């Protein structure tokens, strides 16, 4: 489509970013008082909410429980008002069920599920505003929500997308870049050992460019990991001073008295 | 009408029986229909002395029958009764006391997914099948949990019967050339353990390939197969 417009002469993208620059990431942990863990994540204009309930009893009887590990159940939902045109997305449609499976796969790589045998962990993700890299934002938000819920994790799963425009790899694609038809690679990484837990590519890409694109996406994941770690650290500092035997929910949350969604 | 060795189809009447002591034993594939005996499965009409008749037909799915030796996979090794899958319509149960040397204090070491070679002590259509790894005297005689390092695969039932038949020389010939342990169970499961993974795979493939071989052709088959195995092994 209009790929040539995406990368102008001075190497700036349509939204003014450099090719290896991520969008602004805004995070908030503990947004919902009822959930065991919750998080709100903004990646540029993509806004995602994630909640975690668990570990709790396996729904559907003992037959579905795994005697060795926890069962992770993800439910992905894209609001009708999330894209520029209102469009109802089927919750149990094919795309949603695929995204659910992929989220489960990626989170399974990080969650120490053997510590929660015969339990179920539910992760609900809602896309409130969609502007590209939806899955990446979902996975990052889910990780944050799991951390907020205190579930044991081997590492923080971070996810980043990358695409190739004019033979240059650009990271963290937005909606315009995504829909231009070029190949988009999404990588879910465990940054400590640089192991890829999830990978998906859409579009057509010559095999020679794969390494470049993969490097770019992995670098993006690493940067997101640093940012998230920073934010989690800040969150813990602000809230640790309020730790008492009873739930410290209200004082900490009262500080951010703005509504959860900007 | 139908002679021994003829091909019969379902519905064919059989009436030339040799009666010994006034009794005729009807094996699988033959049913009484009032005064007559008819074949209910397509296959070859067979006879064994003194008075046993049956139809050798092709079947893959096992139907349990009393006193048959089967290989099962343990699906639930908790509690008093182990649940074992024998490839039939229902899972069979195996009491933890039915192992050699097992007492209430000395439980056998059986985990989920283990293979057991057992005998069907109860195989009634009204009751759940029960297995046992010991005979009346409490001896196992080779039954029980199968050791590690083997490989199990499924064959059609008639091949398993053929392998168990005393006249079938296939396993004997293979055994002369290479060291192996083989169990061919009545539910079509064959367990093999040999010196290396390669030999085990080779033997398994050879057995599956010998499904329609006559006894007299088996010697050459095994000779060729063994030459190939030793030629090919590096």
């Amino acid at each position: 489509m209009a790929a040539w417009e995406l990368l102008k002469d001075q190497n700036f993208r349509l939204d003014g970013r450099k090719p290896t620059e991520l969008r602004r990431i805004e995070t908030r942990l503990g947004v919902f008082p009822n959930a065991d863990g919750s998080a709100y994540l903004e990646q540029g204009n993509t806004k995602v909410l994630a909640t975690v309930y668990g570990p709790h009893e396996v729904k559907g009887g003992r037959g579905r429980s795994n005697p060795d590990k926890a069962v992770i159940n993800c439910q992905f939902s894209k609001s009708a008002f999330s894209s520029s045109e209102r469009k109802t997305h089927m919750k149990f449609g094919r795309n949603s069920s695929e995204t659910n499976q992929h989220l489960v796969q990626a989170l399974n790589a990080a969650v120490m599920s053997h510590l929660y045998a015969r339990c179920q962990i539910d992760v609900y993700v809602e896309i409130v505003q969609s502007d590209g890299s939806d899955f990446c934002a979902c996975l990052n938000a889910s990780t944050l929500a799991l951390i907020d819920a205190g579930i044991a994790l081997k590492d923080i799963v971070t996810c980043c997308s990358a695409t190739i425009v004019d033979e240059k790899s650009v990271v963290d694609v937005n909606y315009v870049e995504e829909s231009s038809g070029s190949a988009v690679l999404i990588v879910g990484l465990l940054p400590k050992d640089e192991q890829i837990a999830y990978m998906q590519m859409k579009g057509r890409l010559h095999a020679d460019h794969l390494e470049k694109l993969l490097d770019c996406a992995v670098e993006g994941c690493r940067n997101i990991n640093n940012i998230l770690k920073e934010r989690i650290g800040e969150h813990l500092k602000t809230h640790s001073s309020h730790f008492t035997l009873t739930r410290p929910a209200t004082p900490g949350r009262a500080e951010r008295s703005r509504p959860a969604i900007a | 009408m139908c002679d021994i060795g003829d091909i019969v189809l379902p519905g064919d009447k059989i009436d030339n029986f040799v009666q010994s002591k006034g009794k005729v034993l009807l094996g699988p594939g033959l049913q009484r229909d009032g005064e007559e005996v008819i074949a209910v499965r397509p296959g070859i009409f067979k006879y064994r002395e003194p008075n046993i008749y049956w139809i050798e037909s092709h079947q893959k799915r096992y139907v349990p029958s009393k006193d048959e030796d089967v290989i099962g996979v343990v699906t639930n090794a908790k509690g008093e009764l182990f649940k074992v899958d024998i490839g039939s319509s229902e899972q069979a149960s195996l009491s933890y006391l039915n192992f050699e040397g097992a007492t209430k204090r000395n439980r056998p070491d059986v985990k989920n997914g283990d293979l057991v070679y057992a005998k069907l002590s109860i195989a009634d259509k009204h009751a759940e099948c029960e297995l046992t790894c010991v005979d009346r005297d409490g001896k196992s005689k080779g039954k029980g949990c199968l050791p590690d390092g083997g490989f199990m695969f499924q064959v059609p039932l008639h091949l398993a019967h053929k392998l168990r038949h005393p006249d079938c020389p296939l396993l004997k010939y293979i055994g002369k050339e290479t060291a192996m342990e083989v169990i061919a169970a009545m539910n079509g499961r064959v367990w093999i353990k040999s010196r290396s993974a390669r030999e085990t795979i080779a033997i398994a493939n050879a057995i599956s390939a010998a499904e329609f071989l006559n006894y007299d052709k088996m010697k050459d088959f095994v000779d060729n197969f063994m030459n190939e195995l030793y030629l090919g092994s590096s």
Partner: protein
Amino acid sequence: MKETPLSNCERNFILKAIENKERLDGRQSYDYRRIKLEFGIDRGCCTVELGETIVMAKVSCEVGQPKQTRPTEGFLYINVEFSPMAEAHFEPGKQTEQANEMARVLERCLRDSRAVDLESLCIMAGAKVWKLRVDIKILNYDGNTIDASALCSIAALSHFRRPDITVSGEEVTIHSVDEKDPIPLSIHHLPLCVTIAFFHQGTYCLTDPISREEKVMDGKMIIGMNKHREICTLQMTGNMLLNKEQVLRCTNIATVKIVELNDVLQNALSADEEARSSGKPYGTYVADFRKVTVKAAESPTHSMSEIEEEARSMQLDSDRMEESEEEVVENVVKNSWLLRIKESKANEAQKVKDTICSEIDEFLTTQREMSDLQQQSIVNNSSKNNGAKGQDQDAKTDTKRKRNQNRPKKKPDTQSTAKGESLDSATSQTKKSKGKRKGK
């Protein structure tokens, strides 16, 4: 019914065998099973047998309204169904997760990579477009359904012919098959999928896993690629962790396998065209990957040189039932491992034959040259006189010498007798070729 559980013994054995680079059916690590592609009488219907996995695809089309956001594009919709016939424990409607995953992978591979030109499916912009639908049914499940389905669907799409249409103003007439020949779809490239299964925490990998190998694998990587080395889709599934090198190694393996699969596809399509033009209803093509054909890049954990050295793999066929016992035994003998002996002997004999054939070809070409020269000399002698004679006499004597060398021996001479064995075959070759020449 419940699925038969995989026993620990089988699981451990398969994993141990993979460590020793042995597979249950004797294949090498990167070999595919026997592939059989059969088209149907209807255009757009294809059945693929990959070993014992059987997959069927059918393409159909109808006219519909395009999306508002894309008024000039048609639709390509892929639907996958796991038939309960495929496996004992499959129930209708139960395998939806797996079926969905497959359908999405195939849609990404075929639709999102622009393999099928959707703009060519436009009839009237904004009003009418063709809606293509590929229905895939898994008939027998023995692992690696994705590769089989990808091959099947792209073959069906290439095979399919849509009805011809004429647009006159606002009216669209769809011509039936009798009125006008249906036209093929516009397909830019042929993407195919390769599934690579990982074992032992990613240390070992295999292509084309069978059902039992799939049960013990850590996870798999699905790579969709076309023969121009363009990756159409990449997907990792299962609970495993990979590093960058492993991913790149997979793409190298896939590159090689895609070329093979592409050959299979092209041969099958041309076999079908030939069959149809010669009056048969449809064509079939069978590909047997007996030799190791992978020359993949070196990998740290898997030494390809060993595999290349061995260069043998066998396939056990299981459709022996229909044939009589003798044929069956012969087939059994053919299909069992002992064929390797015959093959190795046959290879030697073949090599000998090849050398003899090449020599015979040389003889024949020289003979042909001689005969041409002879004819020329005859013509020249008849029309001209001494001037030409001188030249031709040399040629004649040359040819005569050669002919004297060759004539008395109808059988090729000492060179071939030294090789002994294939004498008869060599003579039959010469006789055959001489016959051909006479025919000319």
